[in-house]
Structure formats: C-alpha cells, structure tokens
C-alpha cells in the first residue's frame, strides 16, 4: 500500500533526533562553524548518550539491540529510519552531524563487504567510553568523480600489502580510528585491480598531512591522508582474499566502493533536505514576523516559500523511495542517484532564495548564510550532480544496450 505516513517507530526516531538537533546541535551551531571544530567535550557528552553517525543503519545500530531484534521480525526499515534521522540531524547542523562519532561513511563498505571477523573487529569499537570515528578514503588529487583512476598502489608482500599514495577530502580522516582506503594492485587491471583496505590509525607510514579550510561544513574535519610504504596486514583487506579470488564476476574493490553509494547517497540527499528545511523554516518565521502582509514584497515571499516547500517535499519523497527500495531488497542505484541529484541542487536553490528573502540583514549572524555555505558540497560529495545524472542516464539506457 502506498503511504507517506511514518510508522510509530519512524515517528519516534524523528521526534527523538529532532529533539537532539534542536536542543543539542543548534545551540552550538554558529560557534562550531566559527571555531572550525566541534568542541571535544560536546562530542564526549553525546557519545556517552549513545548518539552516533552510522550511515549503514543510522539508528538502532550496535547500541540498541532490542530494537534490532524486534525489527527483524517485522518489515526491515533501517534505511527509512536512516534517512528520517539524517534529515533531522542535518536540520540541526550538517557539519556537527557529520562529526558525530561512529563509522561514518566507512560503515557501509565494512558492513557490506567485510568478513564476519572484520565486522566484529572494526564495528564494535564504537562504544560509549570514548568517541571514535571511521572514515572512507576514495578520492585522490587526480581521481575524484572517476574513481576508477585511483593511483594509490597496494603492493602484495608477505603477510599483507604495502600502500603508497595520497587521499584528499576525507571526512573525519584525521581523527578516525580506521579508514577504508581504496588502492590498486595493478593499474593495468583497471577496476578489477582495486582493493579496499581498512587502515588503522597509528599504522606506520600512514599520516594526516593537512586539514582543509572550506567554504562551509567548517566544523567538520576534512583531511588529506598520505600513505608512504604503509604496511597493511592481509587480515585488513576488506572481505579477505577470497572476495577477489576469481576476478571474473566476483566483486572488485571498485564495486565495493560504488555499492557504498547506494546506501550513502540517500543519506546525503536526506541531509540536503534537512538543510533546506532548516533554511526554509527559519526564513518563513522571519517573513511571518517582519514582512508586510500585502504588496509586492509579500507576494514575492508567498510564491517563493510555496515553491520551496514543494521542492523540499519532492526531494524528500524521492529520498524515501530510494531508502524504501533498499529496505525491501530491490536494486536502488538509479533512485539513489536521482534523490541525491534532486536534493543537492534543490537545497542550494532553497538556501539562496532564503538569503534573498532575508535580504542583506541575513548576512549578519543568521543561520541561513551558514547553511548556504554548508549545503553546496552536498551537490558535490558522494558523487557530483553530474555523476548522478550519469548514473541515472546509464540506468535509463541500460534496457536498450546503450552505455552512456
């Protein structure tokens, strides 16, 4: 049955996360942006509360075993819960949301491709005693959208691999306890040569060389990582050697990297929706309070707000659809790309229009200008808008045997 109504559990999660976003995130939002850092004591506090960012099943992960058990009997709704929670988190503050402890974008590849032993070893470290992070390192200076062009090498040696190369734009890359790193065993093999490794913090030859200063998301760490003759033991090859044993139709590291996007893109889209909603609600309140109730300005505001509202709703529903498909076990690569493309673009437009409605005053200490700076990257990371177009088009043309 088609329905846009949240289940009681979905509603509960939404309310819970919203409460957290409003009361814990918003109050430190502008200050964290100014400091380019989420305060350590705040992170420790929320970690003790059990709040984490886990993009494979954002809510109800290791912490809430009971919820998981009961959910198994019923219809799976982890992906829907994840996008609902992500929207609320980003509504609170996207930079802080992305800085929350947890496996982050590193979670999905470990979850989907890791051996049971690896899942246990890497995903069980996110405990209440101390905030910890995971990270995902794919992008390189010369390989962004074209992830197949990565140059970081993995040379097979006794007992493991030696990594050499550089990764950039890695969310939480510096503070992460481990990073899923994509490298190639042989560039001539193309995608088939890709491998995913879990590289642990403190591994000799692995270090953070730079933290980027950005247009927005300033409170969230974006790192450059360097691997210099960095030895990674074989047991840290994600999925183990067996995963790559027969090159033919076995999944490659490239597929591991790409598959991650099917679950992370809806999360990113949901966050973009949350940011847009935050800007819209903030602006709507000011317009209600300050604007004249008639005349040209009023009419402009009325039309802009109505337009924003339907754009936000449409993007949210596309995101829900992608998450729902994942929950019911249907391939969702096209829908994941579609919601990300629509939400990323929509959210920037909404933030820009909110700034227009606020006028020059909006530049002075208002949340919306920060949201505008924050939101731009949602149309870039986890696949640019152009890549989402490409993925969507490829899926549309696939039935006709045309590879675009």
């Amino acid at each position, binding site marked *: 049955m088609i329905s846009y109504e949240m*289940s009681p559990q979905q509603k509960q999660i939404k309310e819970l996360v919203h409460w957290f976003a409003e009361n814990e995130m918003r109050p430190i939002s502008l200050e964290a942006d100014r400091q380019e850092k989420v305060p350590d004591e705040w992170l420790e506090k929320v970690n003790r509360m059990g709040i984490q960012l886990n993009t494979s099943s954002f809510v109800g992960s290791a912490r809430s075993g009971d919820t998981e058990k009961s959910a198994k009997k019923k219809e799976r709704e982890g992906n829907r819960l994840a996008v609902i929670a992500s929207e609320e988190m980003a509504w609170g503050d996207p930079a802080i949301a992305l800085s929350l402890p947890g496996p982050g974008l590193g979670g999905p590849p470990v979850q989907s491709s890791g051996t049971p032993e690896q899942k246990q070893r890497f995903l069980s470290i996110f405990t209440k005693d101390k905030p910890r992070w995971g990270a995902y390192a794919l992008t390189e200076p010369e390989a962004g959208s074209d992830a197949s062009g990565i140059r970081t090498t993995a040379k097979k040696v006794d007992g493991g691999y030696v990594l050499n190369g550089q990764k950039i734009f890695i969310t939480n890359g510096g503070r992460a306890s481990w990073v899923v790193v994509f490298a190639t065993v042989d560039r001539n093999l193309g995608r088939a040569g890709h491998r995913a490794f879990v590289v642990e913090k403190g591994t000799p030859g692995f270090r953070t060389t730079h933290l980027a200063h950005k247009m927005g998301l300033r409170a969230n760490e974006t790192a450059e990582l360097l691997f210099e003759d960095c030895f990674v033991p074989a047991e840290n090859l994600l999925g183990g050697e067996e995963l790559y044993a027969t090159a033919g139709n076995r999944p490659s590291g490239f597929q591991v990297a790409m598959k991650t996007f099917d679950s992370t893109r809806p999360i990113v889209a949901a966050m973009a929706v949350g940011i847009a909603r935050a800007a819209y609600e903030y602006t709507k309140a000011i317009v209600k309070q300050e604007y004249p109730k008639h005349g040209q300005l*009023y009419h402009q505001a009325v039309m802009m707000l*109505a337009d924003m*509202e339907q754009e936000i709703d449409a*993007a949210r529903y596309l995101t829900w659809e992608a998450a729902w498909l994942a929950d019911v076990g249907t391939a969702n690569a096209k829908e994941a790309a579609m919601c990300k493309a629509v939400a990323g673009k929509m959210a920037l437009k909404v933030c820009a229009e909110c700034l227009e409605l606020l006028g020059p005053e909006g530049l002075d200490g208002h949340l919306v200008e920060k949201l505008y700076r924050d939101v731009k990257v949602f149309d870039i990371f986890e696949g640019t808008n152009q890549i*989402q177009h*490409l993925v969507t088009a490829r899926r549309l043309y696939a039935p006709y045997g045309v590879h675009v």
Partner: protein
Amino acid sequence: MISFQPTDEEQSFAEMALDFAIKHIRPNARLCEKERTVISDIAQKAVELGFSTLELPESWAGLELPLISQVQIWQALSYGDLAVVQGIPGAGDAASLIRLDPDAPPLQAYKDLGMGSDSWPKVAFIDVLNRERLYKSDLTLTPSGSGYVLNGTSPPVIQARTAESAAIAAVDDQGEAAVLWLNHGGWQVKEGDFRLGLLAAGLGRLSFNEYHVGAEEVIARGQAALELMKKVENRIRVLQAAKEVGLMEAALNYVVEYTAGRKAFGQEIAKFQGVSFTVADMAFETAACRHLVWRAALKVEEEPSDSLGTSLSALYRAHKAMRFVTDSAVQLLGGHGYVQEYPAEKWMRDAQAQTVLYGREKDLLMRRGEKILETAKEEIR
C-alpha cells in the same frame, strides 16, 4: 509505514489501463485529434472497461475508487494520450462533484439518465469560482427569485461541445457562491477556433443569454457551496496532475528509446551528455511529480477539508514539470520532434493547453503561499 508499493488490485487495474493506453489510445491519438473527438471505438472500450466511472460513487453504479488508486490508473491511461483521456465520455471533472454530493436533488435526473443507458452523458464543468473577471464576455450570475439568471460566456472547458449537462460554480452579483447543475440544455455552444492542443477533448465554451436557473438546479449556495467546491477542486487538481504525470512518463520513455537508437557523429545521440543529462532531468521531474501527486491523493482523502496546500503544490509542480518534459522531448527529437509523424509535438501542445485550462501556475503557487503565511494549521509534512 512509508511505502511505495501499490496494492495488487491497484497494480492489476493500472496494468490493464496501460495496456489499453498502449494498444488502443496511442495508435488512435492522431485520428482522434483529426476528428476532434474520441472515436467511438475507443470511447466505447473505455466505457466498457470502467474508466468513466472510477470516481463515481457506488450508489451511482460507479467504482468509487480511492484517489490513490485512481491516480495510478489515470497516469497509465494518459501514457497513451492526454487529449483522448480528457475526451473519454462521462461526467469528467464533474464526477468529483457527484462523488462528494451524490444525493443532491439537482443531480438525480443526470443519474437516472446515466444509470439507464450504456454510458454517462458528457458534462461541461465550468468552475469560475476563483476567477477574477477578465473579459467583458465573462459569465455573470444574478440572483433572481429563488434561482439565478446566467449571462455571458464560459471560458473554454473540455467536453463542452457535446455536453448534455453543465455544472457551474460561480460567484453571483452579490458576492455569494453557488453551484449549479443544468440538465436541460438551452445554452449556445461556441465551438471556437482551437488549434493548440487537447483537440479530441471537445474544447468549447458555453454561452448563456438570460438563462434562467431554477431553485431545483442549485446544488449549494453560499458557504456550503464554497466548502463543497473546495473539496471538489482538491480532487480535480489531483486527478488532473496524475494525468500530467502519465504524459510525462510517455514523453520520457519515448525519448529514451529514440535517443538510444538515433545516431549522429558516428554514435547514438544518447552518448552525448547534452542529451543523456537532459533525459536524466526529465526522469527527475517526472519522479518528483509522481510523489507529490500520490502524496496529495492520499492527503486529500484523509483530510478533505484541510488539503488545499498539497493539491495546489502537486498541480503547480506537475504543470511546470510537464512543460519542461514535453518541451525537452521535442527538443531531443530535433526536427522529428516538430513534425507530426512523431508524437512529441502533440504532447507538447496538449501539455501547454492542459496547463492553461487547469489553473494558472502562479495562481496555484500564490494560493499555497498565502496559506503558508496565513496559518501554521495545515502542515503538509
């Protein structure tokens, strides 16, 4: 629970509609346009399959389907051709009026007529309730005794040319709303000179000259009329928006197939990103609209008196998206898009005519926006 899985019943009805759209409607769309009517073969089959009675209540021998089921069926039918769908015999938009007030005495003669025959007579549905007077010839409604006197000419509406009944919602000289149902003809049909689109749908205007409307022809007056029409309009907006989604799906799929086969500069034109990215944009718009329409279909039935916003938003986005999608279809077919050997030019014309007939985009947006600022009562989310 958030879900996008149609019920089995919805799925099979929509599949049947799609099959009819592909095998019967689409191949005859040009002929219907040329004949300026839905040819009898198609009309008859559509009636037989029950497409005239989706919205009619069971007490009228209708299927009384929920809106969420209907939107999927109208989407599938319009995949064939929007103009033909708009010309399918029956009460048309007036079916929503019947659905919401089936026992209104002025409707009973029409009911008897329809239930006693194989098909429901056509109804011209003239809703000028929210229309400001623009033209000197616009309809005027003057109270007279216990009824009214109608003068002037209606704006163009579908089904006008062969309508046997007319439903009219208007504001009288005193500023009071009224909903009327006229069964006895006596108006003049102005066939006009329509060339843009929806030409198979019987576009025309009804002209009235000192036309007396008796009390027995009045369905509702004043506040009751406004309340009734608010609900009727919500349903019509959703149903029309669903048809627009169907047209968009047709255009999108046609363009994907065409650009996958058409070659230029030694390769399929789909391989040029100027083409494939536009196609992706068409897919984004179509999917976004489908959601807004489905959402509105559910909301309108859950809260009939508090769902103005969702229906306005859905139709606004559908209008805007349909213009973009059908224009893109013509554009991507190039010269072929512009000539009548291919369906794209017709879809674009039909789309443009449809958006003009069913509410100005800016007006839809403005009305929703006023609601947003006026009160926080109706939360769409």
